[in-house]
């Protein structure tokens, strides 16, 4: 038996040499010092940026600006009101903003209701969804599970839709990241998970358990559009609250957004792009013809219509951390995109 496990040699290692212990102490000290210095530096940089940031032009007449056609958004200018919902008049969108007291990752306003998805950053970050009234006072809390992704209200404010990422761990599980989209009547009562609606593709029901639904946009009291996915395919679906159905209209449409006149849908098109990349496009619902918009960069947002001719979307600012701008581009594919509101995210046009 040549290869049998040998009996153990004495378990004691050579005594550690003093020199090695000294070197280790030096390395550890260097690590602690470097890490501490960097953390303090990073904190100071942020504090300085906040202090020296061109003081954000704000206005105090929140009520007045909310009374005229306005834009509600998440303020991402570093400083005191970072992350708070803000309001500007549509006549002066990049002008002074009225800050609200509500911190929202995602915000949307319709009629006299506002939906605010917020994060409570403690040791474990948890998220919540609140319905607010005209004065930004909480009306009710909605259950919210996972990372906030999208929020929409129907035009008359009867229904609210939220989409969140419910994540698995990062082990090798296909389908580990799933979305949860819930539609809730704002007046009260429980929400319904859209995955429980019947998904109908080409007249046949898809009952696969990996169905996912996200990105709701409301049409009228009962009808809405959204994205449904199963086995790697995404569809634009037309949903009915009463019939509890989702009917597929066509493939490869994510995060639809219905135009004010109800004729077109702005959406994210994946096409043949690399994973995690999308182009912004508009689909004509009557002809089912799609038009790619002038924005060449990848867009990961649910678009919002400024009016029947222009589409808004948020875009993280290159080279900056945690700051983004709201851009505008013509809905017919012409022209070049430009920044509409600096330091902003999650726009909502209220007329």
């Amino acid at each position: 038996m040549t290869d049998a496990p040998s009996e153990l040699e004495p378990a004691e290692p050579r005594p550690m040499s003093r020199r090695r212990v000294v070197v280790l102490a030096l390395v550890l000290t260097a690590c602690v010092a470097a890490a501490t210095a960097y953390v303090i530096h990073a904190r100071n940089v942020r504090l300085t940026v906040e202090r020296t940031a061109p003081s954000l032009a704000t206005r105090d007449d929140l009520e007045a600006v909310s009374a005229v056609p306005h834009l509600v958004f998440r303020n991402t200018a570093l400083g005191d009101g970072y992350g708070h919902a803000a309001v500007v008049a549509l006549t002066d969108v990049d002008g002074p903003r009225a800050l609200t007291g509500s911190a929202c990752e995602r915000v949307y306003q319709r009629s006299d209701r506002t939906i605010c998805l917020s994060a409570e950053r403690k040791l474990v970050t948890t998220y919540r969804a609140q319905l607010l009234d005209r004065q930004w006072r909480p009306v009710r809390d909605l259950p919210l599970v996972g990372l906030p992704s999208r929020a929409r209200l129907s035009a008359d404010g009867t229904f609210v839709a939220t989409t969140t990422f419910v994540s698995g761990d990062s082990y090798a599980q296909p389908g580990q990241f799933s979305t949860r989209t819930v539609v809730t009547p704002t007046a009260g009562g429980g929400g319904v998970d859209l995955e429980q609606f019947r998904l109908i593709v080409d007249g046949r029901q898809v009952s696969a358990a990996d169905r996912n639904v996200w990105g709701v946009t409301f049409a009228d009291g009962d009808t809405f559009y959204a994205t449904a996915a199963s086995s790697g395919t995404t569809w634009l679906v037309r949903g009915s609250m009463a019939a509890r159905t989702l009917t597929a209209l066509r493939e490869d449409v994510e995060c639809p957004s219905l135009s004010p006149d109800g004729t077109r849908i702005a959406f994210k098109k994946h096409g043949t792009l690399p994973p995690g990349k999308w182009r912004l496009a508009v689909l004509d619902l009557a002809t089912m013809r799609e038009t790619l918009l002038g924005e060449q960069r990848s867009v990961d947002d649910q678009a919002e219509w400024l009016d029947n001719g222009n589409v808004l979307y948020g875009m993280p600012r290159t080279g900056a951390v945690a700051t983004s701008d709201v851009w505008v581009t013509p809905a017919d594919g012409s022209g070049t995109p430009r920044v509409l509101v600096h330091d902003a995210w999650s726009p909502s046009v209220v007329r």
Partner: protein
Amino acid sequence: MYVSVRDRPGTDTTPAGRRGRVASTVVLLGVVSLLTDVSSEMVNAVLPIYLTKVLGLGILAYGVVDGIYQGVSALVRVVGGYLADRYDHPKWVAAAGYSVSALSRIALLPAHGFASVSAVITADRLGKGLRTAPRDTMIAAASPPDALGRNFGVHRALDTVGATIGPLAAFGLLLFVADGYDAIFVVSFAVAVAGVAVLVLLVPGRRARRRQGPRTVTARGVLRQLASPAVRRPVAAAGLLGLVTIGDGFLYLALQDRDNLAARYFPLLYVGTNIAYLALAVPLGRLADRIGRARVFVGGQLALVAVYLVASGPLSGLGTTVVALALLGTYYAATDGVLPALVSRVAPETGRASAIAAAQTAVVLARFVASLGFGWLWMTIGLQHALWLACGLLLVALPAAGWLLGLHRRGTPARVAP
């Protein structure tokens, strides 16, 4: 040829006092793993948010690609094991693996695109694959046979402490430096460097075979050893059980699926599992030393059966979730450290790292296949039925695994004499 498989240390004649103290090498390797896990879990905890919110990458895309890297990492494991055996320098192979992972942390700073972030994450997984088997070989070499299970338990417990501290440290840092992902990467790098320094400077680079004179280890020789029944059978048993094991991710999703509470406090689910693992790693390792590692390894699967039953059962709420997490931690405590303890005891010394790597690779690859299969089952027959099926398959596989591990032999259960 006679291959002795001394799985029951009770049959060995070792001085009673031997296993009293945990060898300093084991504790030091535990500290290295602790620091490395603090480092890697700091990053892992914030990675989904960082990728989606800061870099604007699609989270769905990340999840799919990550699966492929896991497969690559499994194959690198075999290479790490073989290199450690071939050159009889497990410490330096392990140090290379730890260093690659450490460097990947700092490489996250300039990485801003999907491709570069993917490359960095791959490098981290490759480093992990490279170091695992050589490190476990060093633990085995520094442990008396009657304390192998206990010593692996000590190592895994320290490792788990790191995995628990990591996310807390990351979220604590984010409170101190708003959106300070760069600060997280730098601190994570510093902690990883400290881990590498402890390994390189303090852990003795024991060369198991040096005193036996030069004897070349060839790939063919290692393969022959791996093919011997003594090694082949436990590797096959571990692989077989891996095939019917569904991933944690699915279990966590299953718990979240019917319970908003579990979903809201999702990050805490890992902590729950870790606490159970941490508490039980040493006691179950000791138990394995006393009654046989194969028995504890197979018994641990029963905890997994219980997890499936709880996750598919009618009960929901906090209590159910806690019970499921505790059982999952028990399963890990009874298997994760016990498997290398078992394999290192039956493998010949010249091929020990390769044998440990083979067993761990079998587990990882089998689980990967199981994940694909379970994902498909979940889609087609629904979560509850899929869980029941997994439960049934595991119960069928258990006796087969027990037979492969020689549990059917009474008396001296793990003696194989052709």
